[in-house]
């Protein structure tokens, strides 16, 4: 029987997908379905949470070459 | 290789690598006698000399933008640029106005070097990639100018010759093959091994003999080989001079573009097959200076070769005249009919015969380039053409009707070369004057600049050129842009057409 389930499709590269899975493992109930390497289906109301978490994770390892420079 | 640099251009001097395979013959003895440097610079290398009397490579390198001297920058810089642009456009147009007699049905085999030397990166990204790219451009251009000619491609690799594409008249087929080759140039068909001139030429000869022409024993059409050669030597299984002999016998003309340095055997092949004096530097053999020169040399082969004097005489003496071909001009039919019955659209597809890419019996050489069997050509938008003689349908033109053997061609194909037949006379620049008769360009209605008194406004564009170019047949004035457009693209004078 045909089923249409509501959700938000997330398109991202595999590395980001791995991060989202990590986020999901810490606070479960975000991911509804893993579709393929670059697509995920997630809960509609969790999108913002994912984005925020992702930003936190990503900015942990950013090197800013101008940082030292600007202190002069 | 142990010769000094200056010597590499001398026509016949055998390089040490070649001496092993060039047998002693009267010719090469002559070559020895020309070895003295004094003699050489007196004869062959005169045209290499630059303005200062020295060799051109001793001159300071002139960049195109260095020519602009911005001594007084305000305003005149722009007019200078303008003038340079105009000059360039004038240079572009060098269409000969006298009708040439050309052997227009050409059969050409392109031989591409795929040996080790083609992996060199002196041409970006590599010699082979660039050659393939240029070849694709060349093929488009070639069929544009030579609509009913045919072409085949051979690759020299690992000492043998591979067939890339059969001799055929469909540009798309060749381009597809070259693209496939390009895609696989890093895994399966990376440049490797040595090049063999003999093998390649023999294969080209076989292709030309087998595929030649549509009417039998017709000797007046041109058979050509165009070779892009990056190596400096050849490793052949037999005597290459025998191959040259048979090429001459079969009246196959070979042209070579060298990518690294001039090679004696190439010069010899070219001179012998084109019936040129033994020591002369022929225009059929060019060694590239840079990428743009490469392209220039390649594109020179697009225009049909003019018949040599000797051939013209032969023709006159033989008195059997030129062949004439019977051709059909098919009408286009749309085999798809969409009809609406009730609520659903039906698409009716009529069965059709696909007579494209005739391979003329020979197998596709699958080891070199794989054939894409999944022909997307046959999508629902396929159009067909109907042979006017037997009403059978084909999908690709030009081709030979598979049923009645009539050569089928679109009239637009033939007409592509008509501007060679009736070249348009060049326009002449109107001399600078104080006032002119014409105020607007006849073609594009552009307003011409007004005339100025000579000498009164130095540095202004108006005092350098009148910007008017006149057709002497209809005495209408055109602007430079229309002049270029009319001669390069349109090949019609709008003024003359209106009378």
């Amino acid at each position, binding site marked *: 029987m045909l089923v249409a389930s509501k959700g938000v499709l997330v398109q991202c590269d595999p590395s980001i997908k791995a991060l989202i899975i990590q986020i999901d493992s810490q606070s479960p109930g975000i991911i509804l379905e893993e579709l393929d390497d670059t697509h995920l289906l997630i809960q509609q109301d969790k999108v913002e949470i994912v984005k925020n978490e992702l930003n936190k994770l990503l900015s942990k390892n950013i090197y800013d070459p101008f940082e030292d420079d600007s202190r002069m | 290789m142990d010769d000094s640099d200056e010597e590499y251009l001398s026509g016949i001097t055998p390089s040490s690598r070649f001496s092993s395979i060039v047998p002693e013959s009267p010719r090469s003895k002559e070559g020895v006698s020309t070895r003295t440097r004094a003699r050489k610079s007196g004869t062959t290398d005169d045209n290499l000399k630059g303005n200062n009397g020295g060799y051109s490579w001793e001159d300071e390198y002139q960049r195109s933008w260095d020519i602009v001297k911005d001594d007084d920058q305000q305003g005149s810089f722009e007019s200078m640029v303008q003038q340079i642009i105009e000059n360039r456009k004038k240079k572009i147009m060098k269409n000969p106005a006298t009708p040439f007699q050309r052997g227009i049905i050409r059969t050409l085999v392109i031989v591409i070097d795929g040996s080790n030397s083609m992996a060199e990166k002196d041409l970006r990204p590599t010699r082979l990639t660039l050659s393939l790219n240029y070849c694709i451009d060349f093929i488009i251009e070639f069929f544009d100018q030579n609509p009913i000619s045919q072409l085949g491609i051979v690759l020299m690799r690992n000492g043998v010759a591979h067939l890339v594409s059969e001799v055929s008249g469909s540009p798309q087929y060749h381009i597809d093959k070259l693209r496939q080759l390009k895609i696989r140039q890093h895994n399966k068909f990376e440049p490797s091994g040595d090049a063999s001139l003999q093998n390649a030429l023999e294969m080209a000869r076989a292709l030309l003999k087998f595929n030649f022409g549509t009417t039998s024993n017709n000797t007046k059409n041109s058979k050509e080989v165009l070779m892009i050669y990056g190596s400096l030597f050849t490793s052949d299984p037999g005597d290459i001079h025998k191959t040259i002999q048979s090429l001459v016998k079969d009246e196959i003309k070979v042209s070579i573009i060298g990518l690294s340095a001039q090679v004696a055997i190439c010069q010899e092949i070219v001179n012998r097959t084109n019936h040129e004096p033994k020591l002369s530097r022929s225009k059929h053999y060019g060694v590239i200076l840079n990428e743009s020169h490469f392209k220039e040399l390649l594109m020179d082969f697009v225009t049909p070769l003019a018949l040599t004097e000797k051939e013209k005489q032969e023709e006159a003496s033989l008195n059997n005249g030129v062949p004439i071909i019977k051709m059909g001009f098919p009408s286009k039919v749309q085999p798809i009919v969409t009809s609406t019955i009730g609520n659903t659209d039906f698409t009716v597809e009529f069965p059709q015969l696909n007579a494209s890419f005739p391979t003329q019996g020979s197998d596709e050489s699958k080891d070199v380039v794989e054939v894409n069997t999944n022909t997307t050509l046959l999508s629902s938008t396929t159009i067909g053409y109907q042979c006017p*003689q037997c009403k059978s349908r084909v999908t690709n033109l030009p081709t030979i009707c598979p049923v009645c053997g009539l050569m089928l061609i679109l009239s637009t194909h033939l007409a592509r070369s008509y501007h060679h037949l009736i070249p348009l006379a060049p326009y002449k620049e109107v001399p600078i004057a104080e006032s002119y008769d014409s105020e607007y360009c006849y073609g594009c209605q552009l307003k011409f600049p007004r005339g100025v008194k000579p000498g009164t406004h130095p540095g202004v564009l108006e005092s350098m050129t009148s910007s008017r170019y006149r057709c002497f047949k209809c005495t209408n004035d055109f602007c430079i842009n229309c002049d270029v457009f009319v001669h390069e693209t349109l090949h019609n004078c709008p003024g003359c*057409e209106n009378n």
Partner: protein
Amino acid sequence: MEAISDRLFNEHTTDNLQDDPSLLTIILDVSPSGWFKIQNVISIQDVVKSLIVYLNSHLSLNNSNQVAFLITSPLKSKFLYPKLDNSNIIKDSVSKDMYRQFKIVDDIILEELNQFLNEMIDKIENNKRSTLTGAISLGLTYTNRMLTLDQSILTTTASAMTTTSLANSNQNSSNITSSSSTSMKSRMLIISANDDDDELTYIPLMNCIFAAQKMKVSIDVAKLGFKNSSYLQQASDATNGIYLHIENPKGLIQVLSTAFFIEPNLRPFIILPANSNVNYRASCFITGKAVDIGYVCSVCLCIMSKLPEKCPACNSEFDKKIIEQLNRVPQIRKKRKLESNGNGNNENNNN
């Protein structure tokens, strides 16, 4: 390796269609003979009325849309719009009742057309060939200027700076489009009632077709009158244009505003009215008649309907053997009959 020099971002990644301005060139063939034949059906006046509305609708599509209007007759071809010296007309055409952009164009065209027709009545001679190719050539040179040259000026010379800033001499956040990639598109519409195909000059027409092909200008053809014109059919077919033979031109405006209203940027998305059967006939160099099986000189590729001794274009003599071969009439029927009887004739045929 090759991709290394490519820019990371391309401006036009979106595949949705753009609303680029376009140039419409209309060529109206007023050759008297053709219009005379269909005088009971429609007159030039009626067609021009429709065309004017058609022009207006083209102008209404986009503020920057352009039109050009050419007229062709056996006498000569001429630009009606743009008119070279139009200052006096513009100054006094202050109109109360019409959008001014339309008004200017319409007024100029009507005035010039009347003038031209009057001129033509005086000077018309018989036996002159159509100058349609001249009109197409003119249209193409004009198109060339609008399409490529104005654009290249925009990028190469300093005038680019001034012309673009003209548009928005507003200072602060000015330069709405200084180097924007808006580009003109162009198409051409030929309206002809001329039934006689052979009046067209073949080679120049072919040259025009190729030029249009290269410039990606579609040539649309609205053919009035009684017969299809195979050359004009070829022209539109080769340039991805639309060819319609309008036998009943009463509702011309409806046809113009649907089938001939497909802008160049819409063409990839719309099913064009089909040219189901195009006759790619060529013109014989000797007789000027259209042929579908002909003989072609292998030196210069000129097409002939009969077999002469010498090529009419390049003057080279033909191979007599081949001429002989071609002149022979196939006798296949006979051969089959004879096969049962004997094989005397059979040998002959096989030679």
